[in-house]
């Protein structure tokens, strides 16, 4: 049940009075083609305290993918999507969430990851690799945080495994965090489990600050943006791995074997581009590969189309039967004549590849995370 004090803070918390109802949020929202979601309307209606509970029960609050297009477009600097997250919080705190969401959140609390995997198996991805593990007593320039999805989903583990091989070869001062590392909370935040997220920020800040890291390197844009946006007390700066690799590239530490005569189109992940403001590094890496012809989507950079992997959507299925945005994206790539769709986000790999297979294009195209591609091109 809602406390009246919480209702009062809802308007303040999301600065609802700052909204001028210009509609740029809904106008840019990629989900509107798929679902009956009008974020401007929610910002308008949420001002009425008596309506909050009713709004929170609307199914479309779960359609938001937290891509942040609305926030990027808002002339007042508001984050309309967070109103939807605030409504999700009301549902989460009542306990009456979808079982899939319930299980993911509970797994974060108990095991430190949303995939219902044992914490003790978090480092299994390292099997047979020579990995340097971080020690709080030893300063390290690049402290790596491996995303839960990369650590546990075999489909995207290569992102971390290839990274280790690349780092070892390039002689980089690095270390990976031990199994005590916990989920960054990106999806916990967007699913609206505010209390759990606050706890994660507190606990992980303390955990990460124990290490003497020059910087924290993230493999997933979700972890990257979450640390940068929601962890104000981290001692070390946070970067995305593509930033590190471009440094290595510029220092001549990365060389590729042979050529890759492919047409590659790069898909800007929302959490890396719109939210992390990193657009050029992934492209530079792709362009550094001999033979690659880099294509561009019409909708790119801050206008990039969301793949619908974020915002907790890995655990909430949309009611909509309309074409998935990831399918639209693959069709666009196909129309461009791309052989490869390259991304820099584990969620984008999963959603785009799924649609690519769904369209029966397995023979014609590939969806890869940049680290997968680089792993194949590394001199070993």
């Amino acid at each position, binding site marked *: 049940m809602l406390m009246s004090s919480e209702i009062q803070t809802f308007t303040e918390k999301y600065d609802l009075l700052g909204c001028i109802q210009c509609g740029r949020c809904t106008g840019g929202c990629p989900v509107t083609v798929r679902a009956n979601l009008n974020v401007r309307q929610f910002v308008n209606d949420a001002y009425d305290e008596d309506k909050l509970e009713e709004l929170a029960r609307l199914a479309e609050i779960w359609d938001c993918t937290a891509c942040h297009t609305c926030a990027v477009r808002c002339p007042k600097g508001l984050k309309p999507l967070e109103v939807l997250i605030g409504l999700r919080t009301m549902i989460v705190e009542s306990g009456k969430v979808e*079982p899939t969401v319930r299980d993911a959140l509970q797994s974060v609390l108990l095991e430190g990851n949303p*995939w219902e995997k044992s914490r003790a198996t978090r480092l299994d991805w390292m099997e047979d690799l020579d990995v340097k593990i971080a020690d709080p007593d030893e300063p390290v320039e690049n402290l790596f945080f491996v995303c839960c999805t990369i650590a546990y989903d075999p489909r995207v583990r290569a992102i971390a495994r290839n990274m280790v091989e690349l780092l070892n070869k390039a002689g980089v001062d690095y270390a990976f965090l031990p199994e005590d590392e916990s989920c960054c909370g990106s999806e916990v935040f967007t699913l609206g489990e505010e209390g759990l997220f606050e706890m994660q920020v507190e606990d992980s800040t303390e955990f990460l600050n124990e290490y003497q890291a020059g910087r924290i390197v993230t493999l997933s844009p979700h972890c990257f943006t979450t640390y940068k946006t929601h962890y104000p007390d981290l001692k070390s700066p946070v970067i995305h791995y593509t930033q590190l690799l471009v440094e290595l590239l510029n220092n001549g530490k990365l060389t590729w074997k042979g050529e890759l005569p492919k047409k590659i189109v790069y898909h800007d992940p929302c959490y890396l581009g719109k939210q992390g403001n990193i657009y050029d590094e992934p492209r530079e890496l792709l362009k550094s590969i001999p033979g690659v012809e880099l294509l561009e989507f019409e909708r790119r950079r801050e206008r990039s189309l969301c793949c619908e992997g974020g915002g907790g959507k890995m655990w909430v*299925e949309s009611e909509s039967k309309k074409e998935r945005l990831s399918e639209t994206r693959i069709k666009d790539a196909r129309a461009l004549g791309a052989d490869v769709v390259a991304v820099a986000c584990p969620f984008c790999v*999963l959603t785009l590849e799924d649609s690519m297979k769904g369209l029966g294009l397995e023979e014609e195209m590939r969806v890869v995370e940049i680290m997968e591609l680089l792993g194949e091109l590394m001199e070993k």
Partner: protein
Amino acid sequence: MGNVLVLAEHRQGALRDVSFEMLAVAPGVAEDMGGEAVVLLFGSGIDDLAKKITEYGLKVLVVDDPAFENFNAEKYQMALSAIIDDLKPSVLMTGHTAQGVDFMPALAVEKKLPLVSDAVGLSYEDGTLKATRTLYSGKVNALVAFKPADTYLVTFREGTVEAPEPAAAAEVEKLDSPLKEDVPYRKFVEYIEAEVGDVDITQSDVLVAIGRGLKEDKNLPPIEELAAAIKADLAGSRAATDAGWIPHDRQVGTSGKAVKPRLYIALGISGAFQHLAGMKGAKTIVAINKDPEAPIFTVADYAIVDDMFKVLPKLTEKIKELKG
């Protein structure tokens, strides 16, 4: 005196499979214990059921009492308590079923007798009765030994052994009903058949799940035929529900439902991590997929690498034949 008493289970006028399966185990154990296997049957107007069991060559003790028209745990416990005192069997065995588990633990407490539940094997060696059980999703077996007792109680898992072939006919012996008083506390009301219509796959016993390998919905009939033959509900991967081949509420996976059927047959499902997470609770997993590298095979118990449409018709035909 070494006798193994097997309580035959029946429901709505038919003997349950486990009743016959136990007959594959009980005689051997009884012989090793120096006694014989005897079948016990409770019911009302059950001459035909009794006769059917006698075909297996074991003596059948029948308690024919209107009070036993329907199963009632309290009455079963009361009657068995009296029969244990009377006949002093060395072993009393029932199915590990919704009936058996409903009274055997209480009977064990009442009579201060040892119980091993969900046994999948039973043997008598060097004066000790031992039972095999399975633990931890069936990944570990346990060997459990009974300490000496007057009567050992065992509930035996259904579907573990094959029923023996019928042998020479044996006799039926009527016992007086041990129920001397009515049982006041528990009242049978009715049976309700499982609802047909909309299916909740989280409650399904058997699931046939399809994935992208279906290609198009006109390929559904052989899958539906298999499902009908094994009384399975249909489910699907996200790809299958997305394509509209299967209703959305039957999607298995992290964004769909977590299922835990006894048998899960995955057809043309590659097995993304997000799908595997939703079906890991299945007891037995069968996967048919063209791709030998499909991750579904890492969790499958039985695997066929092939075009499912080449396998399905024969599979369904053979299953129908085996089920008679």
